[in-house]
């Protein structure tokens, strides 16, 4: 054809090639600046990785005295127990918040307040919530329950509210048109539409809560985390490995249970 030696060039999403290179250069520059900022000096990384061989040796093989195994078991039960209780409390608290945070069911100011609460709950890592809960009410599993409940509310009400926003308002109107009171409208028009998702979400959150409950002991909020931190601080690395294996096992079982249950519901 005419036009000479022009080769085909892939179109870019940025509109102009100059913009594209500017964006790429900006990203690369940012990463270099970050690398300098965190002190990612190649020599230091090499030295650290050189140490890793001997460190891995310290961690292997996993071992625990009978007393330590008993302690792992006790604290692991405590973790799971915390997750169980706080899944329930979290979900119970989430339901009203989810209804108030659903755009189609809730008046505007109430909607804003509840969305704000959800954002706050989601923004803070469980460890941060945990340390504040511990300072507020003292060490132990109750602080853990408070933490996980708070985190559950953010997650659960957000997703439940999104489901509520997606419901078919036609059936809600139909129930209302038949003369139902607001409560009855809720019970017969709204609730049946979200029950399947509700069950799936609950099990999913239970799974996440098990994971969280194995960690927050690090800040004193109950469960296996405290044992892990103590073992680390005592350089008892083989015991650390044993605890980690226990945590991985519990997390995998919870994930498996949750996956099976959710598949049956969908």
């Amino acid at each position, binding site marked *: 054809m005419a036009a000479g030696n022009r080769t085909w060039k892939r179109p870019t*999403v940025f509109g102009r090639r100059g913009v594209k290179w500017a964006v790429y250069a900006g990203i690369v520059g*940012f*990463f270099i*600046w*970050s*690398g300098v*900022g*965190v*002190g*990612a000096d190649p020599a*230091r*990384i090499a030295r*650290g*990785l050189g*140490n*890793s061989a001997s*460190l891995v040796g310290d961690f292997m093989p996993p071992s625990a005295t009978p007393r330590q195994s008993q302690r792992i078991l006790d604290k692991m*039960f*405590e973790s*799971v*127990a*915390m997750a*169980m*209780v706080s*899944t*329930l409390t979290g979900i119970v608290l989430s339901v009203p918040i989810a209804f108030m945070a659903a755009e189609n069911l809730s008046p505007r100011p109430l909607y804003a307040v509840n969305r704000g609460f959800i*954002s*706050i709950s*989601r*923004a*803070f*890592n469980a*460890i*941060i919530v945990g*340390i*504040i809960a511990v*300072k*507020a*009410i*003292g*060490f*132990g*599993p*109750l*602080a853990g329950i*408070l933490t996980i409940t708070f985190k559950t509310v953010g997650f659960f009400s957000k997703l439940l509210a999104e489901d509520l926003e997606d419901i078919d308002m036609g059936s809600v109107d139909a129930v209302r048109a038949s003369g139902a009171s607001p409560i009855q409208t809720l019970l017969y028009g709204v609730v049946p539409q979200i029950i399947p998702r509700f069950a799936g979400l609950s099990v999913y959150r239970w799974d996440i809560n098990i*994971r969280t409950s*194995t*960690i927050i002991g*690090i*800040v004193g909020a*109950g469960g296996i985390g405290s044992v*892990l*931190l103590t073992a*680390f601080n005592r350089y008892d690395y083989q015991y650390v490995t044993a605890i*980690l294996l226990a*945590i*991985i096992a519990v*997390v*995998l079982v919870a994930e498996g249970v949750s996956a099976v249950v959710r598949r049956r519901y969908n």
Partner: protein
Amino acid sequence: MATDNREWERFDRRRRIGRFALVLVAAVAIIGSWRYMNTGIVRAETIPREVGDLLTRMYPPDVAYTTRIVQPLVETIQIAALGTLGALALAIPVALLAAENTTPNAVTFWLGKLIVTVSRSVNTIIWALFFVVLFGSGPLAGATAIVFRSVGFLGKLLGEEIEEINFGQVEAVRASGASSAQVLLYGILPQVKPALVGLSIYRWDINIRDSTVLGFVGAGGIGVQLFRAVNAFAWQSVATVLIVILGVVVATESLSAYTRALVR
């Protein structure tokens, strides 16, 4: 119409018993859990008062503290960015191993799955404990912890994307005489590129939140300042840090949502 008085029932008897049993098991598990726990001297009914008390101590936030947390905040963002970049670099080979259609053989497949599982089961803060031992305390340990935590997440989801690609295109590239590196570059990567970008941004968003706590084990970031303030019972400073974290998290979340909508 029939004359019997049967009422409509939503579930037959077997399903009703099944549901009842499920609820019963859950109830027993939860009540058992509550009784198992040794809640110590803390009484559940005092929680609202104690929490309320703490919140009043946080007011008003100590605005002057803001100047002291700018640098750690920047560090947190850098940790999250570098961690995501490193994780992405490691996740691509892991995803290729963990995807059924690109993994060379069964052993590599299980190796890929193992890496994904271990990485995902160990929390960021535990990875950070490791790397603080390895690299000494500071943000480098934090960034490495983020890398090791994110590899599993990215490897798993990217692997699932790779399993769904159109393999015809891969074979077409191979048939034209491409080397395996070229097959990867021209056959596989273009098909998963939108997912790759979207997942990385999503993980970066999660990593910002995760890297706010790294300071607790000495792995850098804003957590250092936060936990220092908590230990000093400087609740007004704590409130400032929390508000700043909230602002950053909300900002990155909207940025992440916006960019992911662009690449989708």
